[in-house]
């Protein structure tokens, strides 16, 4: 599924009682959409950034950056995140450059309803993960 189609179909979509808000972000210049910013109703501060390759749809939510965590707890945080990741349904924890993220990957053949469900789940997961890891933050 192309990002453009996904943007059109997901815009205003209501899943599990949550409304989805979609903002396509264009790559500088050529008009090609490279990322979608999706906000699940009520989780405005935790937007999901969606990209796609031929094979998979990748959904990334930024949690916190390296300089937001208490330096003395870094090691423990990493351990906790590795162990926690398995318990989180449909999403995993990761690190992109200095940005800690929650992410989920789906096949491009995934049904729209399942994509929407994953997005809602991801927002809830991101919120709960932040809440759970709060004590590691400065």
């Amino acid at each position, binding site marked *: 599924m192309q990002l453009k189609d996904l943007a059109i179909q997901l815009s205003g979509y209501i899943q599990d009682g949550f409304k989805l808000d979609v*903002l396509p*972000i*264009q*790559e*500088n210049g050529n008009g090609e959409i*490279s*990322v979608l*910013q999706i*906000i699940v109703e*009520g*989780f*405005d*501060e*935790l*937007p999901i*950034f969606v*990209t*796609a*390759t*031929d*094979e*998979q749809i*990748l959904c*990334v939510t*930024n*949690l*916190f950056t390296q300089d*937001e965590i208490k330096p003395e707890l870094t090691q423990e945080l990493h351990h906790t995140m590795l162990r926690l990741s398995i318990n989180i349904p449909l999403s995993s924890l990761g690190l*992109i*450059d*200095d*940005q800690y993220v929650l992410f989920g990957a789906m096949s491009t053949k995934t049904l729209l309803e399942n994509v929407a469900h994953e997005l809602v789940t991801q927002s809830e997961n991101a*919120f709960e993960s*932040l*809440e759970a890891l*709060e004590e590691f*933050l*400065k």
Partner: protein
Amino acid sequence: MSILKKIVTALRGGAREVGEAVVDANAIRILEQEIKDQENAIAKAKDSLTEVMADESKTGRQINALKDRIGEHEDYTRQALEKGDEALALEIAEKIALYENEMAELVPVLDGYRASVASLKDQIRKAEKSVQENKRELSVVKTTERVQKARVSVNTSLSSGVSKSSAARESLNRIKERQQRLDDKIKASETLNSENTDADLKARMEEAGIGNTKSKANDILERLKKK
């Protein structure tokens, strides 16, 4: 070196922009070209395979036909010998020798075809494996590239003020506040609803003369008259 191994090497080398360290535009083009070449090679090998398989079965049929004919002529030779016609028997036997020579030529050809079929099938399987491997690598490279691109375009769009995402703790608190407000709202409207239904019920009960009915002037008058 596998792409994942390259990424780990880049990470341990302290590369911050992993995407750039691993994914140059050339790498993707080369991988895509390799996959295309291999897929072409597989298609060609499959064409050859079907040809060779056709030849194989044709040769096999020829050999079987010769065997049948040899059997037939051996029968004839026996019959000629039984009749005591040695000369005819020899002539028929010469024919058998001809068939046998022809068969002796065909058998190694058939073996050759069989070997080709086996080797082509082997080649195809190997090429398919390697295409699958390259496709997976390409997928890793493209994902890495996409994540990088997303980072860049998100950063530019965020700095242009489309949507400011704030520090984690702030985000967390704001979402919590919003959820609390929503909870409060739901509770408030629930209380309101129940109050409304209470008042409504009371009114209807009064009308029906049940419960605390209001004293009416007529009733009072009636009561006073009785005294």
